[in-house]
């Protein structure tokens, strides 16, 4: 790797200082504060702060509902990441073809990323609302099955998975498209000459060459589905029905900001943080070995 040498010793530090200040103020400080708060039973207005050690963690780990929430989060995250990347790769491959009006398609495909998760949630709410949504109305002509996700947990989960994939789709597509265009045409042509069909070419050449992009998107989508889908869940299902869409980040928010059980909520965010750090570390440790740069 190329090393830049600065003439002045302090200049590099001065240059990274603003970014460092932002990271400390908006990440490390709150994170440490959560860590501290997770050891207390705290009252909303701060008049009571009782040290209870690992009491909050004990309360969480003895609650089956919390483990259900962990499971829901993993299922949700896995579906959003795997399906989301598969769909994005497929459409990127199609959008990479030489067809008329390509720029228009590309722009349209990138659009959803410009929408905030909460707004995306509201849009999907309108499409899927059991009473006045468009889709249930259309479905009612085909089947008598009631897709009422106010009461059916699996429908609610599918709904937020689809909405999250749609929301993240433009971002994934942009990276895959860039990745595809960086693949030298000569390699693919050589493969064609050797008699490889389009599918063989894709799996033997394109997909391995895209592995750095896939790895990057995989990590990013996982983090997205663990944290940033909060707005979506908040707008659409509120964690229900029952607790079927109550993913960890939503639960932590609900207990902290609505329930005002601050210590209990801080303990949840600490566990959530540890989980995601562990997952990311594991990916770098194991999955990155399969990545060819």
């Amino acid at each position, binding site marked *: 790797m190329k090393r830049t040498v600065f003439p002045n010793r302090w200049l590099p530090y001065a240059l990274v200082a603003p970014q460092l200040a932002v990271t400390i103020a908006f990440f490390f400080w709150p994170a440490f504060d959560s860590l501290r708060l997770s050891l207390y039973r705290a009252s*909303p207005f701060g*008049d009571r702060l009782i040290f209870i050690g690992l009491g909050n963690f004990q309360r969480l780990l003895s609650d089956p509902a919390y483990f259900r929430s962990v499971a829901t989060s993993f299922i949700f995250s896995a579906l959003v990441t795997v399906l989301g990347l598969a769909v994005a790769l497929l459409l990127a491959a199609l959008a990479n073809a030489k067809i008329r009006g390509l720029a228009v398609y590309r722009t349209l495909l990138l659009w959803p990323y410009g929408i905030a998760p909460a707004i995306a949630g509201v849009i999907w709410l309108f499409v899927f609302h059991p009473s006045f949504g468009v889709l249930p109305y259309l479905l009612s002509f085909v089947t008598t099955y009631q897709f009422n996700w106010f009461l059916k947990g699996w429908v609610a989960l599918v709904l937020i998975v689809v909405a999250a994939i749609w929301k993240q789709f433009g971002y994934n597509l942009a990276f895959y498209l860039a990745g595809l265009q960086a693949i030298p045409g000569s390699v693919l042509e050589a493969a064609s000459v050797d008699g490889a069909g389009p599918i063989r070419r894709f799996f033997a050449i394109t997909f391995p060459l895209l592995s750095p992009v896939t790895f990057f998107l995989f990590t990013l989508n996982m983090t997205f589905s663990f944290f940033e889908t909060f707005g979506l869940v908040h707008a659409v299902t509120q964690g229900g029905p029952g607790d079927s869409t109550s993913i960890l980040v939503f639960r932590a928010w609900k207990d902290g900001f609505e329930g005002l059980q601050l210590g209990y909520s801080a303990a949840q965010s600490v566990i959530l943080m540890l989980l995601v750090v562990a997952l990311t570390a594991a990916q770098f440790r194991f999955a990155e070995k399969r990545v060819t740069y």
Partner: protein
Amino acid sequence: MKRSTLTMLVAAALLAVLPATSIAATEIQFWHAMTSVLGERVNEMAAKFNASQSDYVVKAVPKGTYPETLNAAVAAYRAKQPPHIVQVYEVGTQTMLSSGAVYPVYQLMKDHGVAIDWNDLIGPVKSYYSTGGNLYSMAFNSSTPILYYNKDLFKKAGLADKAPTTWDEVETMAKKLHGAGVKCAFSSAWPSWVLVENMHAYHDQPFADQSNGFDGLATTLKINGPFGIKMMEQLARGAKEGWFTYGGRLNKAEALMTAGECGIFMSSSAYIGNLTRAAEGKFTWGTGSLPRLSGFPQGNSIIGGATLWVMKGAKAEEYKGVAQFFKYVASTENQAWWAGVTGYLPLTNGAAKALEASGHYAKNPNQKTAVTQMSNGKTTPNSQGIRLGNFTSVRDAIEEQMEHIFSGNKTAKQGLDEAVAKSNEILKEFAALYK
């Protein structure tokens, strides 16, 4: 030249940072959670107060939903910049009472020599927000659930133009509506508040121990008794047979009624305003008292809504202004106007009489339904209100289990038992905080 430009820039920046208050009037921050039409009414009330005198300026600032407003107040108080007045929903009452962060309203009024005839407050409001006979927060917007029905759909199903008065009637009528092809024969907004909290109080059944938390911090819910189970079993049967449509948490189900799809519906009396506007020219509707379940005694419905809390940490001069503002809020004239334009209950007997005398109720009979329902009820330890710590989380635990019951995942007893177990744990956390 360069230096003078810099000085001017600095001066301009400083001026921009300084709050733009006039020197004469003391500013009073009033954070509230009223949106759309209700928010405009609050602004109107503040403007009228500001115009009535020149010493104080009340600034009404909307802070989002009720939980968001409470959250904003918590954060501001911790940052030592609390608003003078914050509107907190009834669910947050115990949190505020225990917080040590509030200046009790009765004390505020006494300290500033402002006399309000507290005895003129209507009973349920006074009992809900008083401790030891003293009012801790200023009653502001109170409502109670009532029954709504869609007259057009009743006609379509061949039903008489009359609201059901018992749960048996609700069931028979809803079945007829369902049979006539009505998509939502019966539904209710605010599932826990209407179908659990209010139904217990309305039938003089305990909701929690310690007289629903009025005699001390409650630690046990009582909703899995014979009454609660019977109520939930009927609703679960309705969901299974199709005559009860669950429409979601909070007031989400109101969308169904507003769209003209529900035959029978229950929600807050403050929903009248929205329904009036939405139904205009589309369908006709009426109201009635909440239905009764036979075999259980008469209690009273309880109130929801919010009150105004005064936060500690401001100057005496500013509190004087708060006291003046509250005096204005409680005045018969203001109360009659407020109840008339919003559909909330008039908070004083004087205001109720004034509305009656002015012919307001004769013109708007639906607005009288809640008043009649409450005056027909009996105030008992079970129906004076509910005061729980961490109530938001408790309500959430209940609604989570209601969804399991309505979807058939659990029986009424299983669901309620689990709601109680979970709630008790949440209540004990709060009790441990303030033991």
